[in-house]
């Protein structure tokens, strides 16, 4: 379980903030179930007011009508319609917006991620004899198949970071460069993975057709070392030549994230 690194904020809070920092102002974003709803809300309140906040059950472009409002707690949350420009359906949101290619980025949680950014949302163990059956992919596989800038987010834990995911429910770069194109998908996919200790990028200099397409350690959270990260990740990690420590949360970020977390996204055991 995640424990606070300092008295000021927890690693889970820093993960939310680090995820939010990947969101760019003005972009259209499909926001997945769970902590991504909180990260995207933080981005919208903090530095990306013109981001289009969209969720798969149909509400598109959520704009909270007052800063008092907490983050939505589910992808079909009734509060997502308040202030939205459109109250649509699954075929609008996942069909046209996401698979039609209009979502510029996505924020997704998953149970596991692997070396090439493939996600697993379905089970731990093997399909025939799972240790645990998880709720499943929801829109995760739909989104991973089509969005060209996927930001995933999950705690950095050895059960979650695998050389090969126990089961690949959502295509990342599959087995490496060109893997997506060969499978019939647009070549580009995963872009960042924000965790409780660091942020990874992907080695895709040419949009998924060249480079190793592996995860690359780009930013460490304050007080975290490369060795601590490598101790959890089971393969030999690629490290960015520009590896740096990420700035700690600002007071505004930490205040906002606590205010927004009305749904207790960050309660221990929740993700």
């Amino acid at each position: 379980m995640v424990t606070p690194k300092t008295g000021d904020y927890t690693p889970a809070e820093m993960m939310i903030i680090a995820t939010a920092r990947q969101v760019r102002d003005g972009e259209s974003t499909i926001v997945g179930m769970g902590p991504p709803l909180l990260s995207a809300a933080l981005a919208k309140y903090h530095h990306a007011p013109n981001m289009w906040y969209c969720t798969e059950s149909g509400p598109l472009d959520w704009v909270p009508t007052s800063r008092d409002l907490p983050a939505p707690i589910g992808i079909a949350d009734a509060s997502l319609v308040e202030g939205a420009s459109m109250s649509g359906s699954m075929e609008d949101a996942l069909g046209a917006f996401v698979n039609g290619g209009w979502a510029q980025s996505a924020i997704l949680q998953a149970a596991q991620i692997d070396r090439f950014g493939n996600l697993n949302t379905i089970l731990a163990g093997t399909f025939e004899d799972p240790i645990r059956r998880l709720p499943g992919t929801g829109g995760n596989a739909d989104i991973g198949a089509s969005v060209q800038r996927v930001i995933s987010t999950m705690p950095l834990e050895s059960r979650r970071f695998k050389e090969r995911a126990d089961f690949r429910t959502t295509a990342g770069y599959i087995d490496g460069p060109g893997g997506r194109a060969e499978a019939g998908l647009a070549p580009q996919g995963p872009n960042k993975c924000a965790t409780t200790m660091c942020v990874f990028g992907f080695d895709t200099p040419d949009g998924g057709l060249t480079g190793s397409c592996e995860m690359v350690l780009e930013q460490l959270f304050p007080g975290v070392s490369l060795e601590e990260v490598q101790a959890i990740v089971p393969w030999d990690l690629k490290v960015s030549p520009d590896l740096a420590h990420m700035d700690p949360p600002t007071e505004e970020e930490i205040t906002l994230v606590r205010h927004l977390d009305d749904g207790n996204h960050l309660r221990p055991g929740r993700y």
Partner: protein
Amino acid sequence: MVEPITSWQSGRSKLMTAREAVERFVSDGDTLYSGFNIISFSLTNEIIRQGKKHLKAVAGSVTPNVTLMAIAGSVDRIETGYLSGTLRSKPFQEMMRDGRVKWNDYTNMTITLRLMAGGMGMPFICANSFLGTDYLKPEIMNHSRSLMEDRRREDGTIAPPYVVIESPFDGRKALLYPALKPDVAIVHCQRADEEGNIQVWGPMADTKWGFWASKHVLVTAEEIVPRSVISTEPHFTVVPGFKVSAVIHEPWGAHPGGLNGHYRADRSWAELTGFGMTTWESARQYLDEWVYGTEDRSSYLARYRERFGDGLLEVLRVKDKMIPEQPARYGWR
């Protein structure tokens, strides 16, 4: 020649009780579209009460009412993208592991598209969603607890749950999913008229295609309204009355779930009782008290008031409603 003709629609009434609707339109072995975000717990409880068996539950995401039906022995097969309530339910985990519940996985979008195909008479529809994933491995498509028997063709062979072909137009890979045509759909809606014109607002998810694709649509409605309420806001109608088999007037029919514009989900209560799904013991206790121990939604609500007081339902009621700033108006003359 200015006689009003509102009486023209007589003889099309679909009003009945939940008991009658489930008796007439739900059969053992049926495929049941059980809703994504507006759940008819009223009809769910009635299906369990009547001891329906071997139902297959389908929806983009299925909700705790499906877990409940599985634990109660009514649902033994599932096709969905997401199972709410899976993680904490030991009985459900157990049944998925030992094969008492069988399933094939899809996604929110591909279930929606499969319902759309079913609703529009198409044999299949395309989506990229599982390209590059482990789902396309033959041993996964036909895993030991998958719905192979449901996919048996007339010639005895087993159809796959997804197929990759080359597009005859441009030669690219195309992943096909088969149409999905449930026997019966159960959903709670904000309002309907007695002919079955159903109106829903809020996130629509796969509701419309779940309705169009299903042979019988059974709805519980928070309000029964005159036709003129329906026809002065015809854009809220999800499917028209000829598509609907039963309309049940059932206020609070989504409880403990919520209903946009009416009430919030009863989370504290849902957690308190754990939906009866955490252990086999709590499940039996929940079913005994809230399902078998009540005759219908009125007696369920009476028990709720008895247990928790009148106040809690009032707390859940939505007070703050959205007012159109400049209402859109139809008109043609």
